[in-house]
């Protein structure tokens, strides 16, 4: 088996064996969305206008919550040494870790997002652009998150540092994701914003592994 696929399979197997992690992320996502109507009131019109932002912000926070386990466990138990010494470049290993992270967090978030959209009264005509936006944007979030996760290794409070590092970097997907939902209800259409989300992911695939691998080398030294 190619080391790239071997690493993805290993991470997926770990996630499946420790099912709590995926459950935690999904549970957080659902709860965060459900809390909003209690906070801003149950008026359908108000919720309808805020719906896209609520779902996107909640998805983003849920993704952040899961990032600390991306490298921290491997860093603590020495597994990261072996990944760094594998026959593939460290950049490719980061891409594999990011792919496994997306499959275990981004994809489940995408799958449940239409339900949560309906829960906060999102116009059903806007659901496709919400799902498609998350589908295009979450891979970039996993990969950008990998940079922050690698940078925070060895810090005294890695979880807090990671959150501070990554939330500003998540602004572009958040902006284009919510704009895509709004635009899909107007004559403008969501296409331009969805293309920008896709561009973010396409740019993150080669660039984020470079940065994250450099940070990992620093952490191992």
């Amino acid at each position, binding site marked *: 088996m190619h080391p790239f696929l071997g690493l993805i399979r290993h991470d997926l197997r770990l996630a499946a064996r420790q099912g709590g992690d995926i459950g935690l992320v999904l549970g957080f996502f659902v709860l965060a969305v459900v809390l909003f109507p209690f906070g801003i009131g149950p008026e359908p019109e108000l919720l309808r206008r805020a719906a896209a932002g609520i779902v996107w912000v909640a998805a983003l926070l849920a993704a952040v919550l899961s990032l600390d386990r991306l490298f921290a466990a491997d860093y603590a138990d*020495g*597994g990261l040494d072996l990944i760094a010494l594998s026959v593939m470049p460290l950049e490719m290993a980061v891409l594999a870790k990011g792919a496994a992270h997306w499959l275990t967090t981004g994809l489940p978030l995408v799958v449940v997002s239409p339900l949560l959209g309906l829960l906060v009264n999102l116009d059903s005509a806007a659901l496709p652009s919400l799902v498609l936006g998350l589908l295009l944007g979450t891979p970039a979030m996993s990969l950008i998150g990998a940079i922050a996760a690698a940078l925070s290794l060895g810090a005294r409070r890695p979880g807090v540092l990671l959150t501070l590092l990554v939330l500003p970097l998540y602004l572009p997907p958040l902006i284009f994701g919510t704009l895509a939902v709004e635009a899909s209800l107007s004559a403008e259409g969501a296409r331009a914003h969805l293309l920008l989300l896709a561009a973010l992911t396409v740019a993150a695939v080669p660039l984020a592994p470079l940065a994250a691998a450099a940070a990992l080398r620093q952490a191992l030294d």
Partner: protein
Amino acid sequence: MRALPEPAELVGEELACRRGERLVFEGLGFRLEPGGALVLTGPNGSGKSSLLRLLANLLAPAAGRLLWRGVPIEADPAAYRTAIHYVGHLDGVKPALSPREMLGFWAALRGERGPTVDAALAAFGIEHIADWPCRWLSAGQRRRLALARLIAAPAPVWLLDEPSAGLDADGEARLTAAIASHRASGGRVAVATHQPIALSGATVLALERFAAAPRDAFPV
């Protein structure tokens, strides 16, 4: 100008290692021939583990250079990575996975495709626990599992940090046998150890001889 070193060997020249502000060792040199063994000795803190991480290219030397087959390793790190196995203090074993799954993963990381996992489990006598979750393993069994990596995917250079820590007599015998057969087929091994280890014809590298003078602390 001196002649190029013979190919097919690992050479360290004037290596120095810095951890934080402290220079751990300096001016360290060695040659590791095919079939050779290097035993690193020295008191705690003399830099045995640091030297092994440096040899694994996980640490960058503060000075000096490492040559693999006559080429500086930073010139072709990918080729050097495929040539080495590193077994450190931390074993990277996941409690939720089984020894068979761990070895399969490690072999995949080394680009190994063949069904070598069973042979590796047998070489360290852990085939009967191959499908347990690793959280049930004792410290010695985890150490055997980490060492089984060496067999699951072949590599010409083994870098072993205190490999016999936690092993019983049977485990040590299996380790000695694995090292002997590795060397007999032209492999090289560098071992950091406190215990006397049965390695015939090994070069002993006493790290305290390369300890950096504490010149920063005591200016003259």
